[in-house]
Structure formats: C-alpha cells, structure tokens
C-alpha cells in the first residue's frame, strides 16, 4: 500500500510538473475573454523612450475611453528586422495582438502573411479620421499602403537628410549648403572637409535607408521593381550610385566599411563632417548638448527623391475588437497625442510628426536644427521614393544588400561584380509568390 502511495505520489509529481510546464508554455496563447473593452498592443521596445511613449499612449487612451483596458506587449529587437522576427514568433506562439507597432518596412510582411486589416472602410466613414488623413502628406500614406489598401494611419515618420557639422564647415571656409548641391559639388566640399582626423562624409553600413538608398534614389533608381516583385540591383542607376560612393572611399573622403561603430559620437567629436540619417539622431545629440549641426537635402543626382519611412499601429485581422483597435490607432495619430510628444530643445521627439500642423508647431517651438522645416518640407515639396523598397522578407532583403555592399566597398568585388551578385542573392528574396 505504501509503495502504491509512493508510486502515485511520484507519478503525481511528474504529471504536475508536466502540466505546469505545458500550462506555462500555453499561457501566452490564452484568448482574450474581455474582448469588448480590452485591446492588446505589441510594440518594439528599442529602449526606455519606447516604453515611456507607449505607456503614455496606453494611459491616455484609457483615460479618454473610460472602462477600456490597453495591454502592452513590449517586443525586443536590435533593429526593425529583429523586431519583426520576434513579432512573428509571438504570433506563431498563439498570441494575437489587436494592434502592432510597425514601420513602412513591415507593411508587405504583414500584408503577404494576410495579417493586417486595411483601414479603407474606416477612413470612408469616420469624419475625424478624414481630418487626420488630410493633414498627412500623401507620400506617407502611400508608404503605408499595398495597392489600394491602406494599412494604417502613420503617427510619425523619418526622412533621410544630410547632417553637417557647422563648425567644421566654417573652419574649412565652406558656405552652409543650401540644398541645391549636385553630386560633384558635394564631393568637392567633402574633400575639403577631409583632414587627417576627419572624414568628409560617412554612412552607416548597418541600414540601407540612411546608407546607400538615398544615393540610389537620387539617380532615379531603386533596389526593387515598381511592383516590388523583382530586384533591380544590377540596374545602371544603382551602379552609378555605388560607383560614386566607392569613389569617395577610394579617395579617402569616406571610411571603408564597416563605417564607425557610432556615427553620432564621431560626428559630435568632429571625426565625421557629414553623415546621412533621419530625425532620430537629434534625440541623442541635443540632450548631449551638441548643437553645432544643421541639416540639408541629399545632393541631387539625375533627380531628387525623398527617402521616407513612417510608423504606425496597424490592426491585425485576428483582432477580437477591431473597432476599439481602430479607435486606438486614430488616437495614436491624433493631433492631441502628436502635440504632446513634440518635446523640448533638450529632449525632443525622435521622429517627425505625421501631421503637417504638428510639424509646423515643432518648427515654431524652435527645436534645433535651424533648418527643421526641411523635415516635413522635403516630402511636401519633393517626390517621395516609390515604390517603397521593402518586400515581405525585408530583413533578409536588407541583410543581403548590406553583405554585398560591404564586399564592394571593402574592395573585394568591383561595383559591377558586386551588384551582379547582389541581384542573384535578391532574386529568391524579392518575390510576390509566397
């Protein structure tokens, strides 16, 4: 009898542990039973700023809509690509958030996996949304669209501009650029700025948007075809852009890849006179007290196109409460929220407000740099790069481009050889058949 008891006890312990383990594994897959008043929002936790911004959004929405609950799910990731991978893992584990924070790079990823609920019907019937939409540059809406389907109202965005060190320009006797540069003028100025301890221009080797893409765009090129179904890395426009950048490296104007580990710090320290980035860098430079910089457009090649990327909270098709989710998306893009996020000259918002009116308020607030009006002006006054070069497998797409780019700029391949290899590497990645 004693033995039976022991045996049963042992079996119970084992079974208990098994059940506990399985329960723990499946806990994330539990469905939302309070669907009517609760929404789950997944967001990219790239740092303390993301946590505080999303918490502020959560509290604000709950206050504006009494009785509702917003559950936040922070998702880690060193970059957008890693974030999307972790988001996919979350969804595969059975958890289906009502909304998820994404950038334009993730639009096709959600669409091709049939995850996103287009907001076209809401936009047609919701007058408040129409008002928001009319205050957003059409190029931003386009970067969040697949065909005629609009994925989300963007709540913020970034465009790629040149940051230049005003002290170094003065020291070299070069007048501040007025945005009408040609590539030749840019190269001549960058050469003058290059000294023993300073590179005239540098670009990141870890992302294509602030790196090589603006140069490709300003030759009228792109890495993908107009339907984002085929790669175009071996096109003459891409070749011309890479040849120009390769020339900067060979002349010692730009560092060979990988560029510096920390472009912002090197820029602040005067080791780099110019670099390309979005508005996010001011959120590091201004709190650090560095103000000797301004921004200008990328130099014009055969054309000029603004390279943009927006962010927003699309509604997932699996949402138990799409109406409340829509309300949240609209709230995140509203003037009240965007105005509250403008920040100050020492603690600014790290993106550009998607609403033109709020962007104007940012300029009026006097937040550096001096040419802040260029951020929104670049999309209002110039054509945005289309199509948005982000196939469904964006992470793999960007990684392949960066790998082959490094071989070219590192001197392992000629520009033509490298781009030909890039084309081959991208062919299985850029495809419209799943």
């Amino acid at each position: 009898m004693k033995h039976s008891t022991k045996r049963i006890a042992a079996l119970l312990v084992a079974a208990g542990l098994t059940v506990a383990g399985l329960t723990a594994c499946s806990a994330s897959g539990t469905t939302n039973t309070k669907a009517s008043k609760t929404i789950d929002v997944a967001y990219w936790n790239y740092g303390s700023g993301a946590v505080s911004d999303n918490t502020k959004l959560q509290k604000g929405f709950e206050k504006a809509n009494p009785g509702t609950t917003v559950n936040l799910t922070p998702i880690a990731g060193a970059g957008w690509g890693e974030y999307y991978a972790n988001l996919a893992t979350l969804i595969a584990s059975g958890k289906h958030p009502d909304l998820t924070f994404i950038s334009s790079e993730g639009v096709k990823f959600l669409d091709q996996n049939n995850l996103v609920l287009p907001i076209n019907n809401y936009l047609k019937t919701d007058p408040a949304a129409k008002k928001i939409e009319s205050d957003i540059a059409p190029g931003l809406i386009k970067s969040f669209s697949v065909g005629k389907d609009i994925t989300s109202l963007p709540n913020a965005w970034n465009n790629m501009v040149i940051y230049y060190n005003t002290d170094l320009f003065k020291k070299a006797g070069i007048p501040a650029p007025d945005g009408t540069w040609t590539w030749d003028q840019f190269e001549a100025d960058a050469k003058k700025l290059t000294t023993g301890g300073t590179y005239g221009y540098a670009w990141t080797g870890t992302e294509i948007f602030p790196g090589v893409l603006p140069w490709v765009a300003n030759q009228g090129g792109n890495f993908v075809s107009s339907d984002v179904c085929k790669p175009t890395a071996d096109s003459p426009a891409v070749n011309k852009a890479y040849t120009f950048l390769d020339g900067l490296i060979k002349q010692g104007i730009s560092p060979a890849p990988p560029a510096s580990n920390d472009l912002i710090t090197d820029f602040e320290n005067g080791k780099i006179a110019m670099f390309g980035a979005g508005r996010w860098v001011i959120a590091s430079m201004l709190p650090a007290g560095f103000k000797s910089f301004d921004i200008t457009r990328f130099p014009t090649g055969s054309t000029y196109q603004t390279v943009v990327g927006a962010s927003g909270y699309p509604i997932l098709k699996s949402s138990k409460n799409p109406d409340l989710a829509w309300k949240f998306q609209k709230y995140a893009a509203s003037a009240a929220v965007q105005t509250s996020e403008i920040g100050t000259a020492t603690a600014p918002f790290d993106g550009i407000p998607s609403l033109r009116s709020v962007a104007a308020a940012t300029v009026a607030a006097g937040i550096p740099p001096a040419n802040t009006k260029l951020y929104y002006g670049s999309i209002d006054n110039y054509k945005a790069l289309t199509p948005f070069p982000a196939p469904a497998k964006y992470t793999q797409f960007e990684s392949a481009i960066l790998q082959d780019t490094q071989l070219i700029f590192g001197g392992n391949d000629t520009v033509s050889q490298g781009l030909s290899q890039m084309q081959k590497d991208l062919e299985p990645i850029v495809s419209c058949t799943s």
Partner: protein
Amino acid sequence: MSAPSVRGIGGGVLLGATPGGEKRSLHRRHGDGLAAAGFLAPSGVGFLLFVLAPAIGVILLSFYNWNLLSPPTFAGGANYIALFNDHHLLAVFGSTTYMALAILAINIAIGLLLAVLLEVRMPRWIRAFFRLSFLFPFVVSSSAVALIWRFLLDKDFGLVNYWLGFVGIGHINWLGTTQWAPVAIILVNSWKTLGFSILVYIAGLQGIPNEVREAAIVDGANAWTRFWRITFPLLSPTVFFLLVINTINAFQVFAEPRVLTQGGPGDSSRTIVEYIYDTAFQGFNIGYASTVGLTLVLLLVILTLIQFRLSRRWTFYE
C-alpha cells in the same frame, strides 16, 4: 550470484540473510527506485520538453515549408535537395570550419601552455591574479564581450590599431575585409573561451601525483622529457575532454560574428549557427533552417565519433 550481490550493496541485499529479509530488501530497493524516479522526474520532464521534443520537432520541420505565420505545408525532401543548390551553405561551412579549427587549436595548445606556466612556482597572489584574468572573460556575456571588442577593433578609432601603430603596423580593417574578419572572430572567441580550457587543464595538472614527477627528476629526466613522458600522457584524458567539448563549442559560435561582423563581408565570417538563425528568422524559412541544423548535428556527431575512435591511440588512463 556474486555480481548481483555487488550491485546490490546500495540496496541492502547483502544485509538481508533470511528469505524474509531478502523480500524486505527487495521492497526497499523497489521503493528506492520509485523515489529515484520521483527525483529524476523534473529533469526527465525537462529533457522531454526542451531537448527530445524540440529535436523531434526539428526533424519533422525539415520536411515542411513554414514561415511561422502561415500553416506549414509538406515539402517532402525539397529542403534536403535545396542543400545541394545553396551556394552560400558551402561557403558558410568553409568559414565555420576554418574558424572552428583555429579556435580549437588555440584552446588546446595555448590553453595547455598557459596552464603549465600558471603551475610553475610563483607568489600566490600573482597566480591568483593571472587565473582570475584568464577566467574573467569566460564568465562575461558573449554579446557584451563582442560589443566591447567591436569598439576596440574599430579600423579608424579603435585601441588595437592605435597600439599596433606604435610598432609600425598600419590600420588593419579588422571587421571589414574578408581576410581579417574571420581572424577577428577567432581572436575574440578564443580570448573568451581560453579561460575555461586553462581551468580544466589546471585541474588535470593538479591531479597528477607529485611522486611520479619526483621519481622522474630522480631518474634525471629534464623538464621537456618530464612534460612529454609524464605530464602529457597523464593529462591526455583532460586533453581529450577539451578536444571534444571545444570542437562542439567552436562549431556553434554565434554571438561574436553576430555582433562584430554580421557574418560579413560576404560570408567570410559567417558561422553555420548564424546562417541557421538568419534562414529561420530573417528569411522565415523554418523548414530549411531545420534541415541545415540537422547537417550541423550530423557533422558534430561524425567528428565526435572520430575523436573517440582516435583517442584510443593516444589517451592514457591510469
């Protein structure tokens, strides 16, 4: 009868002389077995859930196409056929093998050298300082180590090139060229893992009886002869252990290439584990990533079997 009796010592068979006593002892053995099963159950469940089930899952997934978000579709042997058409895979196996062999050689040879040097007569505090210095990188997170080295190895502003400049060596592009990127991975990984090898070697060296060495000294053997004829043979089981463990670890390097070079330029510093990760979580091709994972398992099993087979020729057990 003698063999079962010996096995039964712990269970008390030898203590029970009468038939009744034997029965009680058997019951006791039976009870002990259940208790043992109870104690083993947590590990057993853990093994089933986190080792065996995922391993079976990987084998099954290798026959499917799955992008995490859509339902898996049966692919038959397509993922296995794809192995032969993947020109990146061969390059990645090549770079992995190159880096793994170098890391292994450094751990086995330099680890032994440093362990022997640490065992020579010296003040205790100096010995403690060196031991701690060598072991410290091993206990620090791989990603943190790689992140620090990324700054140290920076071509233009890194300390390594700054110091090399004093001896007339120009700026080396450690992380940006196909020649130096794998070398950087080898150096950083070896710097991190060497401490473990040294620690195990020291334990092995301290297990060698002093009398044997003293006898060799009395017989007139010089230091070199003592090392090769006495120390190394007695240390051979330790060397074998480190060879097996370091081989497996060296083929699974991930954090250093991920943080330092992202596998580049091209595939020059990409490891097979990084390739599996990229295939699964950048390409969302879980089925093919599982197939590549199985090729790594196969390679490691073969290498380990070869090491075991060859070890009989050179490993000496007292």
